[in-house]
């Protein structure tokens, strides 16, 4: 392997391993995330120029940090008015002094950075993209394609959010006890949003999207590791692992959609399920219930089928009862109705769907119409079922799911 190639690979490896750690550490005190990213990208460019000549340093991460710091100081001097620059440079100089004994590992500020990105003063829809960019180093174009917006718009929104962090003085800090639940919820919601974006492409046809689900799990692992006593952090990781475990079973060999109830449990990844079960047990022992644990528990009840037991529908109804009470989410109400059809019969399930049908949000929500169509078909109301299938088919974006619904409709 050529020196250049080796240097490039070493820089790339250091980037993957430590990008978020370096961004978080560099911006923790100045709150200047964009500045830290710029300095770091210059540092990586410098590494690619220097390492092929002088060899890969013993501690690439420390080298990158030192190079990025020098560039931050230069940039601060160039950019700012004299008075502001002196304060900024002093902060950086203090950091350098504090880190003079460079053998110490770089403090992990990633969690603090995530809390800054998911701060209530940051618009909710940009929190997940912001975390993906600052912690994982995704570029705006990649994030934009995953969230189905134009790269220019995504770049602009990310830049605006970073400016807000700096100008409004949003702190890099793990919240105090009393604010923790609410603030952690925003971080978890952002991670789950990233996971859901990746999950919406179950076949993994688009590599970028599948990658997003994996990266969200990586973030979930990081938060669960850094906050091992937060039940919901464990719950979210469990939920994502249960879902991911079923990925190989969600499509048949022809790429057609396979609904959960018809999936072959032998295709589920037992290792991931086992890890999820452990996490859920640990979360439960902490004694604080929450939506992610409840949703993970539903998944647990579904995958019990792999042990040759039937699906525990009464448990699922009870879990959705709790979820509905906790979140008031119409999505939970739909799933509850579906579960109710299994325990009390199709008529009860339909009645439960009717009870929420006035919610305007459901008119454009595919799973509502798909659930309705299925239950109506089971009552034998062919005309009404056809109508509901038409709605569901019209609202579905995934071609494989659309074909599945069309087959169901044709079979009426």
């Amino acid at each position, binding site marked *: 392997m050529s020196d250049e190639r080796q240097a490039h690979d070493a820089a790339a490896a250091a980037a993957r391993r430590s990008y978020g750690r370096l961004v978080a550490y560099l911006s923790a005190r100045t709150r200047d995330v964009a500045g830290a990213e710029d300095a770091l990208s210059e540092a990586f460019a410098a590494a690619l120029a220097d390492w092929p000549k002088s060899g890969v340093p013993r501690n690439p991460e420390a080298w990158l940090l030192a190079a990025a710091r020098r560039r931050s100081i230069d940039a601060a001097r160039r950019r700012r008015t004299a008075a502001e620059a002196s304060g900024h440079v002093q902060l950086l100089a203090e950091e350098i002094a504090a880190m003079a004994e460079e053998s110490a590992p770089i403090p992990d500020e990633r969690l603090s950075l995530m809390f800054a990105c998911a701060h209530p003063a940051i618009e909710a829809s940009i929190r997940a993209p912001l975390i993906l960019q600052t912690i994982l180093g995704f570029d705006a174009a990649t994030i934009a394609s995953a969230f189905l917006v134009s790269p220019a718009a995504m770049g602009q929104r990310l830049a605006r959010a970073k400016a807000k962090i700096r100008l*409004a*003085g949003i702190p890099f800090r793990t919240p105090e006890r009393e604010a923790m639940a609410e603030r952690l919820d925003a971080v978890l919601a952002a991670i789950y949003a990233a996971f859901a974006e990746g999950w919406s492409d179950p076949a993994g046809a688009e590599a970028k999207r599948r990658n997003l689900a994996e990266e969200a799990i990586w973030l979930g692992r990081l938060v669960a590791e850094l906050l091992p006593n937060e039940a919901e952090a464990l719950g979210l990781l469990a939920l994502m692992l249960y879902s991911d475990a079923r990925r190989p079973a969600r499509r048949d060999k022809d790429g057609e959609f396979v609904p959960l109830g018809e999936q072959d449990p032998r295709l589920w990844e037992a290792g991931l399920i086992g890890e999820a079960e452990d996490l859920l047990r640990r979360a439960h022992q902490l004694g604080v219930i929450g939506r992610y644990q409840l949703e993970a528990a539903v998944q647990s009840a579904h995958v019990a089928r792999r042990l040759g037991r039937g699906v525990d529908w009464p448990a699922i109804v009870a879990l959705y009862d709790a979820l509905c009470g906790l979140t008031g989410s119409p999505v939970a109400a739909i799933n509850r109705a579906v579960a109710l059809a299994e325990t009390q019969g199709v008529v009860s399930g339909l009645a439960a769907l009717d009870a929420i049908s006035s919610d305007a949000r459901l008119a454009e929500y595919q799973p509502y119409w798909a659930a309705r169509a299925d239950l109506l078909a089971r009552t034998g109301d062919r005309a009404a079922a056809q109508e509901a299938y038409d709605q569901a088919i019209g609202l579905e974006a995934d071609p494989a799911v659309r074909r599945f619904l069309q087959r169901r409709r044709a079979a009426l």
Partner: protein
Amino acid sequence: MQYLLLIHTSEAGFAAIPKDQLEQALGAYTAYTEALRKAGALVNSNRLQPVAAATTVRVANGKTQVLNGPYAETKEQLGGYYLIEAPDLDAAISWAARCPGASHGAVEIRPVWAM
């Protein structure tokens, strides 16, 4: 950092407060100001006269236009401000939440442009 807390409340609502409760309402502001002062966070503060006393000025093509009334007609009006010193936005939010105006209106937090 310095933050300006802009208090937006309904003038009509404030005017409708019965006399015996008015003292209590104003007392809450006095106590809040005192708390800020004691914490060393208070830079400056003022209550503003109602928007009926406002005058808005624009200069267009060299001509000065003077209009009676506030810049924008809104349901709630800017009724006063606190300029405070706080280490970060969370500290500013915590002060804003304790401002009496946050309970009967809204408090907008604006970081001051550092020169």
